[in-house]
């Protein structure tokens, strides 16, 4: 590890980190923006969920490299070519959490809202979605971490953020670049993860902090301590680098 390489290359490192962060975060957010309405629909109309989930599983199984290449013809050598497949992957990760979170909203809460005169839309916006919040954010965390990590695969078509350090490090037999890339991607991903944890605390202040079960359970998309929670295929923790 040649530490002296770093100060001389801060510009490059900064630029690559910014590109990596941009592509990763935009993909995760876009995935969220699609997953929420889709999830609301799937929770409402149960017949919708199995086909949507199956389609999502198929997309998730596609190697990201193949998707990048397929899109080259349409979106060229731009960030968009990488953003679109990563958005799809994020969508696949977040969708089960949206559906699961909404379905886990206690009936009493729904009924209380209705009793207070909330219409369905207001109930959704002010009761159901906030209550599903922690679970959705759990999915968002997985999606963000995975997206940031997967951006590096885009380097194989020249759009890869910190992934550039991997291919150049390999080409020049220069482990320093590779270490720097690895560490920065992990740090970036964990920083975003932390931000989302903080966001959850801010956005759902009614959650008691002492609930250690909340963290672990939220990770699995179900509130803690249920005897036989209906764990469904789609609810297994997803995410991970999967080119």
């Amino acid at each position: 590890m040649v530490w002296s390489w770093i100060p001389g290359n801060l510009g490059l490192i900064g630029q690559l980190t910014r590109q990596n962060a941009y592509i990763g975060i935009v993909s995760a957010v876009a995935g969220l923006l699609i997953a929420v309405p889709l999830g609301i629909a799937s929770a409402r109309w149960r017949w919708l969920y199995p086909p949507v989930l199956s389609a999502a599983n198929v997309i998730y199984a596609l190697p990201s490299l193949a998707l990048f290449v397929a899109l080259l013809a349409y979106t060229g050598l731009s960030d968009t070519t990488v953003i679109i497949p990563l958005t799809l992957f994020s969508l696949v990760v977040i969708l089960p959490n949206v559906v699961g979170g909404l379905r886990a909203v206690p009936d009493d809460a729904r009924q209380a809202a209705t009793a207070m005169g909330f219409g369905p839309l207001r109930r959704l916006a002010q009761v159901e979605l906030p209550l599903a919040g922690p679970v959705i954010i759990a999915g968002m965390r997985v999606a963000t971490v995975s997206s940031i990590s997967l951006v590096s695969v885009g380097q194989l078509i020249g759009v890869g953020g910190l992934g550039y350090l991997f291919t150049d490090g390999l080409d020049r037999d220069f482990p320093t670049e590779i270490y720097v890339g690895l560490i920065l991607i992990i740090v970036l991903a964990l920083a975003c993860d932390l931000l989302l944890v903080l966001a959850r605390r801010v956005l759902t202040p009614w959650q008691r902090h002492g609930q250690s079960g909340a963290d672990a359970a939220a990770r699995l998309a179900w509130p803690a301590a249920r005897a036989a929670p209906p764990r469904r295929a789609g609810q297994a923790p997803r995410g991970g680098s999967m080119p």
Partner: protein
Amino acid sequence: MYLTTRSVQRGSAASLALAVGLALAACSSSAPGNPLTPAASSGSVIVGSANFPEDELLAQIYATALAAKGVTVTDQFSIGAREVYYPEIEKGAITIIPEYNGALLATAVDPSSTAATTAQVDAQLKARLPASLEVLDPAPAQDKDSVTVTQAFAARYHLTSIAQLKPLAPSMVFGAPPEFKTRPDGQAGLRKRYGLVFKGFDALDESGPITLKALMDGQVQAADVFTTTPQILTDHLVSLADPKSDFAAQNVIPLVYRKGVNATIVNTLNAISARLTTAGLLEMDKATIVDHENYSTVATAWLKAEGLPS
């Protein structure tokens, strides 16, 4: 009451702010604009490079010199093999890319060409390139494909020329970039000109660490190692002579999108080409690949030493 109106409102406000902020950030992309529209005329260019260090170095040289001349340069380095970036430059999504005249001709322009010398290759290129593209002056520097073996292998069979491999080939595995298998001056060319039929073909990388490791480890007995690869010197590899000129001339040459360049750009690039020699290129390759110096540092140093804009 569980959900105070204020806490929910705070939550909603926060999420709204987050969404708007991200949307605004999304509008300012770091991409070099819509890749389907040609680069803005003359004033700004996009310099691309292929996915190996030498081409990135050359692209860096072009980019640095052009920037010094006041041209607005965006770089798009390390794209992929020619087969990926060629369609992009053809439609103007890239403006300039450092190329090698022989490989460009044989692969993308005219597979049936038998041109071998620099002059022949350039003439064919000028005649056959699509209307949207042109090549500028070739540099004396050449980085040719080769059939390279280890010192030990060459010594054991007293090898100096590719022709001597004919009886050995059926027991050898050959390593090269994947496109070598289908390129006309690749596997087919070796078979046609030297009668070489290898036992196997391993698709590796662009004369990079994977190819070199495979050759040194004995996973392949011969490999396509580009002639300015510094490891030829440091690892004492032997590049066999090519008497039948399977590998045509491979001068470094700027390939440009016609509508994207003006006189200043053309003159600057030609000035660079005039001073680029094989020895100079090999030295720069050693600096970047073996000594791990930055492409931009090495590029700027060379430009200064040659009295070119930097």
